[in-house]
């Protein structure tokens, strides 16, 4: 086919679900009502760490309106998102591990009755000493102090260690060595929609569950395991999700309990979590302490880096196994780094479990790295923008830890952002109290490996053509507001030369749609886009064949545009798309095709090399201008410039929307949000009023600059455009504050009291615990073989 201009891709079109969402027509999980439906509630532990001696539920079960009460004994099978760390229970069996850990579930005729019945359940707890910090977890090494029994070393979920290149020699070649410590506080996703699941168990022994989930396929597998039902008997439908940000990517207790209670009662059962419960379910950003040591030449060239991270995981593993690797994986993909050592450890604590949040495990090290580089630039007297520009990773290269970079638009991102923000004019030149800061970053466009080891596609798309010219696209992908349904419509419309509004998109239903692994790791556009193109092209082959015959035009002269199949040379020689479909169905029979996508093979093969791999890296650069009142230390962000290499913007309007949402979220994490706990393990303020997240009033003007590098692996060249924007904004805020008032805050969030303390020289540096890391896995580029590896 000849190169043609895009008709849909690159246009600022409306999202396919925009009208339904703005008119209130969208039916989220909690909007669903089924006849005879019951309401479920979970009884949650008030203690952070305790053994369960016994549970008495008979009084609750006798309450009028209560249909069933279940406890851990009813759902003993453990589950968890990662196959090797299945340490969660739908209802705690022997012990509870954080305040809010569920111990019993009821189904009743109303939420009020369900709530009332919880008060009648008696749980006999034997309180255990809670572990509430990274330091405590590392110190509690006695068997008796364990939070979990399965892990090798008490309270250490996972410790990893890598050495890429000769570290001793690397540091020996450096003119100067810099060392810093940082702390990134945990924070929550705070989607507007609270989690909800509605389950129905039919007379044919089939279970259907509607849930606000980002990962219906992984939920499908987990339900099958816990309920001991074959997957063929379970149908998972992801209802439209009112915001996910990573917080709805795990299989959850309320999903298991809704299903089990529906099976017991024979009635539909719905659970909707309260805002408070979402803080206990959590899976938010890990609190991470970090230590970084870098050797540089006097001109700022990086020689060697040693990075350590300590993750506070909370009570369960969740995605933690991946998270700990992610805190060390992507330091190497933005700037050339010849030697790199990484050590990371994730500990269990008696707090709600942490998991993936936008940027999954990479915003914390990115904050540390970019502030650290800003300090180095300052000490060496080099402009921080120049320091980066002189050592950017080249396109088509392999990093020291074996990650393959295809295209990179980082140089253009940095240069454009600096130009738009008038960096040279402003840096070091603004009056005291006003400052400008810079940072850059990289992110993955989809994880290179699936969560569970298998050789099947990561994404599948099926397309069916109707005799009337209608097109229906089926895909397991889940629209969580990011626009993945629209992406499918755009791709298929582009391929068939029709209006996206004429395409029906059916997604996230395990009975109807081929598997897509879910909306996480910014994988959806790249993977579903490629799968959709493949399916379209199979159908186009048939359509072109019949059109060529009908129009007496060679197939390679045909194109699809404006609802027609036509000759490119003589565009008037055309038949309508619908007519072409009719002819094709006459010739070939019922028309349908599938397409699928698996990421390419990767260069590295060491154990742990699976995390950080991706079809393509996105790159971002951000400049933040802010003012800080030196008397009150109140910070006002004046403007944020963000340049992002998204490969190709399918819809610039949607990409800008993702950009602005990311910047907003980043500012919240940088300046105010924190998931903090009292000594008794209670979340300090599990409410949307007292957990401080910025409002529109705190959100500054945001200027998004899109850079298109047309990556060969992406559909039409696209990379991710959902998470990467968040990463550079947080360190840019910290760097801008230093430019404004000359103090460094190395611990997030940057609150006014910390700034004031720092101004008075009273802010202590972040302390980092000592830990005996395992001996490192050593690897050098070139040592690998070209096969994907199990992580």
């Amino acid at each position, binding site marked *: 086919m000849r190169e043609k201009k895009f008709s849909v891709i690159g246009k600022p079109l409306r999202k396919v679900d925009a009208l339904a969402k703005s008119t209130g027509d969208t039916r989220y999980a909690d909007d669903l009502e089924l006849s005879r439906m019951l309401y479920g509630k979970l009884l949650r532990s008030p203690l952070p760490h305790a053994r369960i001696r016994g549970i008495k539920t008979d009084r609750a079960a006798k309450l009028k309106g209560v249909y069933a009460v279940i406890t851990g004994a009813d759902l003993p099978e453990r589950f968890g998102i990662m196959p090797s760390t299945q340490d969660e229970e739908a209802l705690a069996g022997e012990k509870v591990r954080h305040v809010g850990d569920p111990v019993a579930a009821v189904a009743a005729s109303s939420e009020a009755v369900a709530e009332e019945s919880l008060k009648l359940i008696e749980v006999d707890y034997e309180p255990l000493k809670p572990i509430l910090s990274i330091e405590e977890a590392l110190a509690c090494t006695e068997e008796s102090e364990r939070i979990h029994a399965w892990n090798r070393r008490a309270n250490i979920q996972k410790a990893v260690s890598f050495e890429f290149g000769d570290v001793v020699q690397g540091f020996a070649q450096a003119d100067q060595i810099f060392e810093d410590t940082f702390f990134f506080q945990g924070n929550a996703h705070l989607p507007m929609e609270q989690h909800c699941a509605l389950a129905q168990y039919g007379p044919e022994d089939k279970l259907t569950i509607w849930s606000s989930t980002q990962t219906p396929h992984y939920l499908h597998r987990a339900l099958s395991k816990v309920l001991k039902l074959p997957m063929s008997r379970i149908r998972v439908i992801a209802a439209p999700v009112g915001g996910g940000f990573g917080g709805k990517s795990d299989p959850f207790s309320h999903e298991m309990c809704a299903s089990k209670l529906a099976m017991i009662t024979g009635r539909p059962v719905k659970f909707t979590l309260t805002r408070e419960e979402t803080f206990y379910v959590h899976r938010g950003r890990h609190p991470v302490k970090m230590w970084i040591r870098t050797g540089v030449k006097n001109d700022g060239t990086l020689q060697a880096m040693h990075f350590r991270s300590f993750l506070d995981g909370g009570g369960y593993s969740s995605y933690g196994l991946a998270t700990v690797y992610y805190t060390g994986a992507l330091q190497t993909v933005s700037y050339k780094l010849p030697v790199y050592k990484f050590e990371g450890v994730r500990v269990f604590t008696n707090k709600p479990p942490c998991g993936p949040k936008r940027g999954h495990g990479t915003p914390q090290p990115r904050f540390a790295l970019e502030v650290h580089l800003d300090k180095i630039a300052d000490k060496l007297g080099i402009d921080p923008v120049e320091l980066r520009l002189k050592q950017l990773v080249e396109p088509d290269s392999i990093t020291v830890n074996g990650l393959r970079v295809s295209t990179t638009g980082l140089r253009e991102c940095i240069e454009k952002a600096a130009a738009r923000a008038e960096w040279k004019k402003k840096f070091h030149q603004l009056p005291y109290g006003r400052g400008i800061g810079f940072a850059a970053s990289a992110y993955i466009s989809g994880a290179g490996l699936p969560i569970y080891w298998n050789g099947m596609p990561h994404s599948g798309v099926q397309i069916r053509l109707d005799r009337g010219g209608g097109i229906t696209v089926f895909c397991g992908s889940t629209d969580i507001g990011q626009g993945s349904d629209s992406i499918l419509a755009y791709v298929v419309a582009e391929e068939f030369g029709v209006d996206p509004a004429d395409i029906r998109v059916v997604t996230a239903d395990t009975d109807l749609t081929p598997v897509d692994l879910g909306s996480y790791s910014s994988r959806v556009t790249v993977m579903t886009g490629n799968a959709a193109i493949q399916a379209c092209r199979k159908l186009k082959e048939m359509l072109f064949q019949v059109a060529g015959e009908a129009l007496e035009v060679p197939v390679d002269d045909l194109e699809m545009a404006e609802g027609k199949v036509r000759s490119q040379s003589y565009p008037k020689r055309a038949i309508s798309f619908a007519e072409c479909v009719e002819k094709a169905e006459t010739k070939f029979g019922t028309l349908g095709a599938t397409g699928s996508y698996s990421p390419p093979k990767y260069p590295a093969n060491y154990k742990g090399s699976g995390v950080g791999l991706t079809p393509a890296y996105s790159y971002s650069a951000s400049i933040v201008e802010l003012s800080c009142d030196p008397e009150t230390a109140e910070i006002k962000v004046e403007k944020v410039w963000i340049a992002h290499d998204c490969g190709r913007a399918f819809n610039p309007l949607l990409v800008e929307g993702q950009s602005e949402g990311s910047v907003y979220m980043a500012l919240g994490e940088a300046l105010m949000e924190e998931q903090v706990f009292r000594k008794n393990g209670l979340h300090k303020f599990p409410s949307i009023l007292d957990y401080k997240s910025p409002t529109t009033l705190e959100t500054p003007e945001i200027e998004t600059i899109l850079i298109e590098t047309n990556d060969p692996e992406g559909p039409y060249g696209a990379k991710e455009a959902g998470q990467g924007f968040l990463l550079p904004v947080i360190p840019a805020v910290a760097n801008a504050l230093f430019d404004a008032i000359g*103090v460094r805050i190395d611990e997030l969030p940057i609150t006014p009291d910390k700034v004031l303390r720092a101004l008075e020289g009273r802010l202590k540096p972040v302390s980092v615990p000592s830990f005996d890391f395992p001996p490192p896995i050593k690897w050098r580029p070139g040592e690998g073989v070209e096969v994907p590896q199990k992580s």
Partner: protein
Amino acid sequence: MLRLPDFTYIRPKSLKEAGRLLAELGPEAMAVAGGTDLYPKMKRGQFTPRYLVSLRFLPELRGIRPGSKEGMWIGAGETLTVVAKNPAVNKRFPALAHAAGSVSTPALRNMGTIGGNVFVDTRCNYYDQTFFWRQAAGFCMKKDGDICLVAPKSKSCLAVFSSDTAPVLCSLGAVALLAGPDGLRKLPFEQIYRDDGMHFVTKRDDELLRAILIPRAAFGQRNVYLKLRRRGSFDFPVLGVAAAMALDREGICRSARVVLTAVASAPVVVEEASRLLEGKKVSREMIEAVAEAAAKVSHPVDNVDLDYWYRKRMTRVYVKRALAELTGLKLETEKVPQEPVKDEKGP
């Protein structure tokens, strides 16, 4: 979601009937106007009334009379939006307009009333929690328990007085018109409050706030309200400074009042302000002295947003800025002890 418990809602036709109903029903009943604070607290089990007596539609509580003989009369049932937008309030008492307009969010100001705001329940992050949370924490004396979780040795509750409008009314010498069984009673706002997080209002239980009267004496006074909070919306004050000052033609201060909110369980009048400023031409040094005095009487504790150490520090800064705004004196920004690094290199 959190469900609102069952209750009986009664809508009386007059203020008198409302008062009678509340007296008859006793402690099981509560009055409700906008309900913006009350209903969420019922969901969390902080308030557990069986009966709610609505004040929402009572004509006696309505109206703003800007130039009545005694001063400006503001019906207690007027919404915060109405008060914040009223031209006469904006002209004479911009502090009050700003305070009313800074409460919570636009939607809640459309429901919430000024009467509700002056008596808004004191706040504490051990108390403003769900039943589950409070049970897990161990109940506090303000609801269901017997100790103060902020300071276990404290004999009284340390919940924080969190009204934005009350400190402004205190600073203007405003008077509450209380309707009781024996008719109307006038009580200056300054005397209505008590520094006790549980019993922070001294009015009798059978009295309802009918209106607020800002006396004519306050009409010529310059006034200002500065509010410290994390965000530009939603948040309650974690420090508020209301200041009012009368200056004569020679620029001599004839009266000066500074009142703090959200640093105790009641508004805190900075007595030193009147003593130091009245009868004098206000200087920068005097402002500094008042600010210093205000910081001394500001006693925030660790039970609302932002570090209490920081809130105490900000009392001085906010009072200074409030008085600078009233007097038009330009203050120098505080010298920062540490030399900024960028100055070393110079641009």
